[in-house]
């Protein structure tokens, strides 16, 4: 794998370099003492120039890669005696030792260099999830964030044209450039970036012995250069003025030269020294108008807006002047107090201040240019405030206040200002069409998102709907700020106009589909009326449904179905009720609870609930459950366990039914379980059945909307659709789109629109407004509870154990049967110790086959797709990692651990630790320490049961996987307790893997059913099995038909 890093230098170049795990890690050891000033040596595992460029092309496309040049830098890196330490992102195929950095040493490496414009291009086109085998190092991700900031500053027009005379003094040329102009909040964000800058960004060894630039200046430099490059490039096509007529003069005036130099590749201005100096001075003093005056001063000038106490008596709005402490914005010194100060240095609020009066006066003078009304108040000798009429106050709030704020003044506005609740908007009022009314009332009829409703827009002021008359009264006041029932509201003239227009055109009885109504009402964009949408409101019989959908009203809880064998935890009952509620109205639901919260039994309870309601009818249509191959057995067993009354048919394996036989069989069952892999292949048979519901487990399997499998699934006809997933869907938006489009087709619009209006702004730019809009939009259809939710925690035990039942794949099954056949024959003809040994050997072999054929055969063959357990482990780990959790994986076989480590590293793209009997003590300590580091360190830790089962403290993990079983609860619990012990602050989930229909399941059942056996006999290991008769062994080892999946 390759890890990419970035470094920004003072020559305006971004250097990209990469580490490769395919290169040797160490250099040959130097002889003798290390020199005091070590000479830079070539970095042993950095990519060379050509491979680098090729790799950059892989990430961002060849166009950007082509604009890169070859470069070289010397960087200081944490190193040990034999070379630089790899970055944490670099996952090594070999096990990393316990090397500790002993020093920062200089290393020479090849880079690809990009000028500011190409650097911006590259950084902005980095993928959110890089391709397999490539990781973006912290420094690269950091500069990508800064690049987005550059882009933002251009979008927000926060840049200024500047000119600097080129040193030395007396020079006859100057450089024109664009620079960023940062407001106070932006400077705060700049500081946030500076604090987050990886130290690596400052590790460039400069040519001279100067110290590396501090983070703030480095970032400012980057911002200025990239903004300049972008604006300059963009302006090369812009004509600032009509072309000069007539002859071109010999000497072009500086102002004109400047405009040209700001908008073309050549940034130079030429003129005699004094002229240039005068020009530069002129521009500088012009630009000084926006430089925040004395931000280093302890105080700044601040305006506070106070509305009149009583709007009726015509009293005035007041803007009073204060000095505001820069380090604590809540400290205000009224102007009255400032005027009383007599000495030059005054102390307010324990802060010293030089010449406060002059500062206040100068600020007021500057502010009057942005806010001319201010001048009037300055007629007084000691002005403290300004009185304004409503119109003027409105102009101040809307136009002057933002300008003043950007210019570095404090502006304290009333809290209601700018709130959507104090603005004019519209509400979407919905009611069912006359004939649909009855259905909605009883809730029996299925409506779906395409149900047609009649709708009406209502003008609203905040929460309140306005009648035409009330609205007209407000309009007649003809003032932009009005107090309505004790609350100030803003009536924007342009919005009033739109509202007036709306009332003129208003027609009754328009229709809209429920889906569109929800999209408009919850997405809260602009309405057809041109006013912002405030709310969506159901009327009459429709009110309940809508309130429940939008979460304004609680959903009534269902009773636990009588046929359900077990107990639902309170949150599970809520989950089932929610599923039942959406189903009732024909809406697709996505249950996205955290892994381990019991989505499976929630769904089983729902199936029972549905069937209980249909007692009188004929057998209802079956439900089709689609899941990954590895958990078919798990589903089957869980349904048998919790809902024995349901008839389950498993549709997979070579002997599965087809055509008419399949259709007939399906109709005789309540649930048909099948796998994703089969959907496309068996579409013909599956599509022939009218399904009551289609349920997707691990619904992230349809994340690729173009896949044949996904499309086949979407074509299945069903009354109702449900998706189950444990991955945080809100973080994987393309997946979310695909799932919601399966559940409620069309609701999120086209994939392309969804990407541009939600996925891109949220994933790339962390747009919180878009994210909030999306959350509202999908809210009715997605229920996601986390283990860490307070309401969930109280329902959960601290340690939650569950069996994970996995299927064998065909290869495993054949091997398994071969082993059983061969061994039983030998066992039958042997006795005593020999027989004992053979039984134990058989147990061992069969367990190996259940784990993975490659472990049994030991042929070093590839692992993928050849073990149900491994597939399931991979799926579950993916979910745990997506939630940011850490996990322990126990196996009793050292060789299995050895196979798992590289496989999981490669598949999951993260470092995996592996501790076994042969790991030296020093390395063990290092691993434990790295694993326990909060928020970082490798997230997965494989341990051999014997070596890692005792003593270690691994509380950073909150998932424990037992990949194979020791059949001794005491030993397993001891291992589990590595995570579940003092220091653990989360709930711990324990998963014990068992292969369905094999000896693993049978032994597990025996232990479960005979607890006393487990305690006394099983405590001695697996010996008790050797005492079994051959007949018993035959039964124990036999492979039942449901063991195999495809």
């Amino acid at each position, binding site marked *: 794998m390759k890890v990419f890093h970035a470094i920004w230098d003072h020559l305006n170049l971004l250097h990209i370099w990469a580490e490769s795990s395919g290169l040797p890690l160490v250099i040959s050891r130097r002889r003798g003492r290390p020199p005091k000033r070590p000479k830079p040596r070539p970095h042993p595992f950095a990519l060379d120039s050509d491979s680098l460029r090729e790799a950059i092309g892989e990430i961002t496309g060849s166009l950007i890669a082509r604009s890169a040049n070859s470069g070289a830098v010397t960087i200081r890196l944490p190193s040990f005696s034999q070379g630089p330490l790899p970055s944490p992102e670099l996952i090594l195929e070999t096990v990393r030792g316990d090397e500790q950095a002993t020093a920062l040493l200089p290393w020479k490496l090849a880079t690809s260099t990009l000028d500011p414009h190409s650097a911006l291009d590259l950084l902005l086109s980095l993928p959110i999830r890089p391709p397999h085998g490539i990781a973006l190092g912290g420094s690269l991700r950091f500069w990508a964030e800064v690049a987005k900031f550059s*882009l933002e500053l251009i*979008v927000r027009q926060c840049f200024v044209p500047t000119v600097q005379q080129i040193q030395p003094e007396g020079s006859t040329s100057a450089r024109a450039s664009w620079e960023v102009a940062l407001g106070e909040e932006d400077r705060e964000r700049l500081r946030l970036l500076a604090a987050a800058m990886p130290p690596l960004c400052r590790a460039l060894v400069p040519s001279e012995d100067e110290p590396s630039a501090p983070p703030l200046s480095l970032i400012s430099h980057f911002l200025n250069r990239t903004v300049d490059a972008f604006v300059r490039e*963009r302006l090369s096509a812009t004509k600032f003025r009509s072309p000069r007529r007539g002859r071109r003069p010999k000497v072009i005036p500086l102002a004109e030269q400047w*405009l040209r130099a700001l908008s073309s590749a050549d940034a130079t201005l030429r003129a005699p020294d004094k002229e240039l100096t005068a020009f530069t*001075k002129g521009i500088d003093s012009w630009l000084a108008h926006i430089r925040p005056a004395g931000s280093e001063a302890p105080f700044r000038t601040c305006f506070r807006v106070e509305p009149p106490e009583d709007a009726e008596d015509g009293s005035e709005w007041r803007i009073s002047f204060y000095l505001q402490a820069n380090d604590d914005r809540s400290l205000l010194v009224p102007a009255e107090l400032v005027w009383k100060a007599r000495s030059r240095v005054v102390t307010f609020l324990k802060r010293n201040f030089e010449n406060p009066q002059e500062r206040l006066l100068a600020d007021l003078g500057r502010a009057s240019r942005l806010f001319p009304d201010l001048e009037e108040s300055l007629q007084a000798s000691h002005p403290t405030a300004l009185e304004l009429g409503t119109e003027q106050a409105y102009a101040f709030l809307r136009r002057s206040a933002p300008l003043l704020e950007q*210019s570095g003044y404090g502006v304290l506005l009333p809290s209601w200002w700018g709130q959507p609740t104090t603005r004019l908007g519209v509400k979407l009022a919905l009611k069912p069409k006359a004939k649909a009314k009855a259905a909605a009332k009883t809730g029996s009829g299925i409506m779906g998102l395409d149900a047609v409703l009649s709708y009406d827009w209502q003008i609203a002021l905040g929460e309140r709907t306005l009648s035409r008359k009330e609205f007209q009264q407000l309009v007649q006041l003809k003032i932009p700020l009005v107090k309505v029932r004790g609350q100030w509201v803003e009536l924007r003239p342009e919005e009033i106009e739109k509202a007036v227009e709306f009332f003129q055109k208003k027609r009754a009885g328009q229709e809209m589909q429920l889906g569109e109504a929800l999209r408009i009402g919850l997405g809260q964009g602009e309405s057809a009326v041109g006013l912002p949408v405030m709310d969506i409101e159901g009327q009459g019989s429709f009110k309940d449904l809508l309130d429940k959908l939008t979460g304004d009203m609680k959903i009534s809880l269902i009773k636990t179905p009588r046929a359900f064998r077990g107990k639902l935890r309170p949150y599970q009952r809520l989950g089932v009720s929610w599923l039942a509620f959406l189903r009732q109205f024909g809406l697709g639901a996505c249950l996205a609870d955290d892994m381990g919260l019991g989505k499976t039994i929630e769904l089983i309870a729902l199936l029972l609930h549905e069937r209980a309601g249909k007692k009188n009818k004929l057998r209802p249509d079956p439900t089709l459950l689609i899941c990954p191959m590895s958990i078919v057995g798990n589903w089957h067993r869980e349904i048998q366990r919790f809902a024995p009354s349901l008839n389950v048919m498993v549709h997979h394996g070579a002997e599965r039914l087809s055509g008419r036989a399949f259709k007939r069989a399906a109709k005789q069952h309540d649930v048909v379980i099948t796998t994703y892999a089969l959907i496309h292949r068996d579409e013909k048979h599956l599509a022939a059945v009218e399904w009551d519901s289609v349920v997707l487990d691990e619904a992230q399997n349809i994340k690729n909307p173009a896949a044949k499998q996904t499309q086949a699934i979407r074509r299945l006809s069903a009354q109702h659709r449900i998706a189950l997933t444990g991955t945080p869907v809100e973080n994987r938006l393309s997946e979310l789109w695909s799932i919601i489009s399966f559940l409620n087709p069309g609701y999120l619009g086209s994939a392309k629109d969804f990407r541009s209006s939600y996925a*891109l702004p949220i994933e790339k730019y962390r747009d919180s407004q878009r994210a909030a809009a999306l959350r509202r939009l999908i809210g009715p259809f997605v229920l996601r509870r986390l283990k860490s939710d307070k309401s969930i925690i109280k329902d959960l035990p601290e340690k939650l154990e569950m069996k994970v039942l996995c299927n064998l794949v065909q290869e495993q099954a054949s091997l398994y049967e071969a082993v059983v056949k061969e061994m039983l024959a030998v066992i039958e003809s042997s006795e005593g110790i020999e027989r004992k040994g053979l039984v134990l050997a058989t147990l061992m072999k069969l367990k190996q086959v259940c784990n993975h054929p490659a472990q049994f055969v030991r042929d070093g063959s590839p692992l993928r797709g050849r073990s149900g357990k491994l597939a399931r482990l991979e799926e579950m780990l993916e979910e745990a990692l997506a939630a940011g959790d850490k996990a322990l994986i126990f196996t009793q076989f050292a060789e299995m651990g050895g196979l798992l480590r590289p496989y999981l590293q490669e598949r999951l793209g993260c470092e995996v630790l592996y501790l076994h009997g042969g790991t030296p003590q020093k390395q063990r300590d290092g691993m434990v320490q790295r694993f326990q580091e909060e928020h970082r360190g490798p997230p997965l830790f494989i341990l051999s049961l014997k070596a890692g089962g005792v003593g270690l403290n691994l509380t950073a993990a909150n998932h424990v996987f037992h990949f194979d079983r020791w059949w001794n609860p005491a030993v397993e619990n001891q291992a589990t307790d590595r995570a579940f012990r003092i220091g653990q602050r989360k709930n711990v989930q324990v998963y014990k893997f068992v292969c369905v229909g094999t000896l693993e399941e049978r032994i597990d059942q025996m232990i479960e059913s005979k607890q006393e056996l487990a305690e006394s006999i099983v405590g001695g290991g697996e010996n008790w099995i050797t005492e079994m008769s051959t007949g018993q062994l035959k039964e124990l080892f036999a492979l039942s038909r449901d063991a195999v999946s495809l």
Partner: protein
Amino acid sequence: MARRKKYWEDRYYPSSTAKPVKDGIKAKSQRGAIGETWWSKRWVSVLESFNMGARLGRGRSYARRGQVISIAVQPGRVKAKVQGSRSKPYAVEIRLQPLADRDWELVTEAMAAQAIFAAKLLSGEMPQKIEQAFDAAKVSLFPTSRSALDTDCSCPDWANPCKHIAAVYYLLAERFDEDPFLIFKLRGRTKDEIIEVMREKRAARLPEESVPSPADAGLMSDEEVTPLEEQLERFWQVGDLDTFEVRLRPPEVDGAILKRLGEAPFTIGGKNLASLLGKAYEAAGAAALRKASEDKA
């Protein structure tokens, strides 16, 4: 090789043969009126109202060509060197009658009565009503007649003002653009003196009250940097940027920066630079917004 001058040319056609000056002070404005702010314009219009003849116009082109080598404003007087046709530059001196202390007293008293005077002056602008404050003392800020200007030039021209003096008049206007307090200096008071007096006057207008004395020290503002050697632990890691949201929305107030900057001190073809630059903001802002929605997924 330059044409050899005939002996009379110096005397009779001097305007065409002034010696070029390397690095002279050129007027910023190369066309139209000189002076950007209302007060420098006022200075120019006061002078032009004195009917000083064609020399004034020639002085303006002198100023634009950069014939003035140096200018120094001192209390009550301006000294300048202007390159004419002779090899040695002419010495120009312009004196303005300084106001009497008593008059200054009255003027500052009037200015202290309204905060706008101090506010505007401190923010680098001349208050529009400044002349009212001088009226209060029955004096004038700008000269009211030619006789108020006492001038000297070492050139042989008998006209007053000669074009050399006139050139200095115009360049003075541009100096006033940069620093409005220079006008006061010419009338005998420096900026600091005026500010100090006004502070006292403001104080005098308030009842006496004690103010606590200075106590705490100032605040640190330098960027502190931890040496790399002490950061080996997190050497590769980005800090927490979860709260770093990128806001790709056009500005609340369009062209806000230019609005805040106000008129630029330069124009091209009669159009102010600030208004010409408006296009740059629109074009770059829109392009960046387009780039933000580019999608290479």
